[in-house]
């Protein structure tokens, strides 16, 4: 059951509030092959196939990750998603972005929401240089846009501060350097609806400050921002509204202070 507090942003109840994301009774179910029956043996798999046919698919275990979540997000809001591990935060973000099909219910969005992150498109065997181009193209930027922003991306990542690392394969980077370049590429694009999944805590202190600044910039340009984080501080710094998810259900939806207070009380922090 959701405890709903209206007008959480305190923007005033004027009619100018334009919804950008509407989630309507969203359910998401993962199907895991071979997760059922406890035994992973060959005979178990065979009997699973033989007994198949009646009603539910056998041998496929279902994980109900998000259960009936509804909310409306408005232009100009920065919304934090909190909850313990496995509560369905990242899954919900992926569904809003249209990357994960919903089992039932619908997500309506204004334009194409995008997830901040290009990690999956990058290849460790390629040079940083080629990864910047590949990552940009994967996010849907044109070659011209990438060319125009290439130097900014490299400068922002700070990869070349300690020598000419951008022409080396990415697998030779330290984990911090890789994370910095990935963030720099991902943050190069402007988004209408931006979703950030715990991307803030990468790199050294200097880079963290720089990336938080960039996030604030992106927030200004983007219509609506969603942020998943376990750091209550970064939620408090960035967000004005918070959704608290637990076991796939929306437990609370309201202004940052109220929800975080309840969350901290519950988790004992």
């Amino acid at each position, binding site marked *: 059951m959701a405890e*709903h507090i209206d007008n959480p942003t305190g923007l005033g109840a004027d009619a100018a509030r334009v919804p950008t994301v509407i989630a309507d009774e969203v359910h998401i179910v993962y199907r895991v092959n071979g997760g059922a029956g406890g035994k992973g043996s060959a005979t178990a798999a065979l009997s699973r196939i033989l007994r198949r046919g009646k009603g539910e698919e056998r041998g496929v275990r279902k994980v109900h990750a998000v259960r009936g979540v509804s909310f409306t997000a408005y232009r100009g809001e920065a919304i934090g998603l909190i909850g313990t591990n496995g509560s369905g935060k990242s899954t919900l973000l992926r569904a*809003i972005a249209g990357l*994960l099909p919903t089992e039932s219910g*619908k997500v*309506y969005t*204004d334009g194409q929401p995008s997830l901040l992150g290009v990690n999956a*498109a990058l*290849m460790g065997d390629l040079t940083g240089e080629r990864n910047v181009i590949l990552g940009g193209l994967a996010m849907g930027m044109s070659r011209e846009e990438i060319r125009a922003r290439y130097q900014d991306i490299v400068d922002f990542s700070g990869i070349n501060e300690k020598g000419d690392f951008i022409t080396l394969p990415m697998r030779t980077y330290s984990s911090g350097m890789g994370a910095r370049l990935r963030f720099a590429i991902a943050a190069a694009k402007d988004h209408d609806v931006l979703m950030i999944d715990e991307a803030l805590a990468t790199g050294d202190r200097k880079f963290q400050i720089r990336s938080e600044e960039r996030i604030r910039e992106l927030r200004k340009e983007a219509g609506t921002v969603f942020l998943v984080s376990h750091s209550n501080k970064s939620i408090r710094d960035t967000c004005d509204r918070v959704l608290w998810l637990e076991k796939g259900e929306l437990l609370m939806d309201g202004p940052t202070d109220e929800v975080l207070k309840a969350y901290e009380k519950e988790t004992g922090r």
Partner: protein
Amino acid sequence: MSEQTHDGAVAVTAPPSPDAGLSRAELAAKYGLSVSGARPSLAAYVRQLWGRRHFILAFSQAKLTAQYSQAKLGQLWQVATPLLNAAVYFLIFGLILNAGRGMDKDVYIPFLVTGVFVFTFTQTSVMAGVRAIAGNLGLVRALHFPRASLPISFALQQLQQLLVSMIVLFAVAIAFGSYPGGSWLLIAPTLALQFVFNVGLSLIMARLGSKTPDLAQLMPFVMRTWMYASGVMFSIPIMLKDKPAWIADILMYNPAAIYMDLIRFSLIDGYTASNLPEHVWFAALIWAVLVGAAGFVYFWKAEERYGRG
């Protein structure tokens, strides 16, 4: 502003806004919001794909480069791998089993190498297609792009690999007395048709493989059977001359055999039109158009469901 919570309770605060009382779907319609992750129309899908053509090309080139980047010889393996492949088949089928009976050595060796390279093109495209979605779920769940980009990109990677192999093939042909001539120009349209066929097939396999990843285990056997049945290392009419004619006909009109024979005919002086089935160009075209279009539509039909798992 009022809004319905999901259990149906209505929380109302004053003053009421003009949006009060609207259901979520009505609210979405009022502000022109669209359903996230819905499947675009076929025409829109083609446009989206065209918009991503630079990504498709860059991704295929990146995959190709990444493949050998850890090896000491690096990109040299792009040429060495097909060469070694051909050498192994020559050792087994040319020297030990003497599968080239009825053919001159000057014909048989380029015949065999062409067969191996051209079939490998289809084989690797299909295998990459099976894993195109299932093996890239991370990418599918992180970024937005028409999913057909992935199988097409993998097929394009194999095309580039084949073009490198063609250098080896030309060298082999010249070494065995077939010199470049006008008929070599026919290689380009043949490869174009085969590429369209491969894309269609790998799109079909990509959708099947996304639902049933087990296909990745099964397909190597299917592909090997197909290879042996297509006359990669022997001439179908010569090998099957004692059997009923319809068996040879079926084997010769299968797409893999058609594309192989067309390249052989274009490339090898001693491999004449008498080795080709009738209406061979028409068959090559039909296979490409049919499988290409069917594969594309079949893949598109499940566009919104990729990434569930």
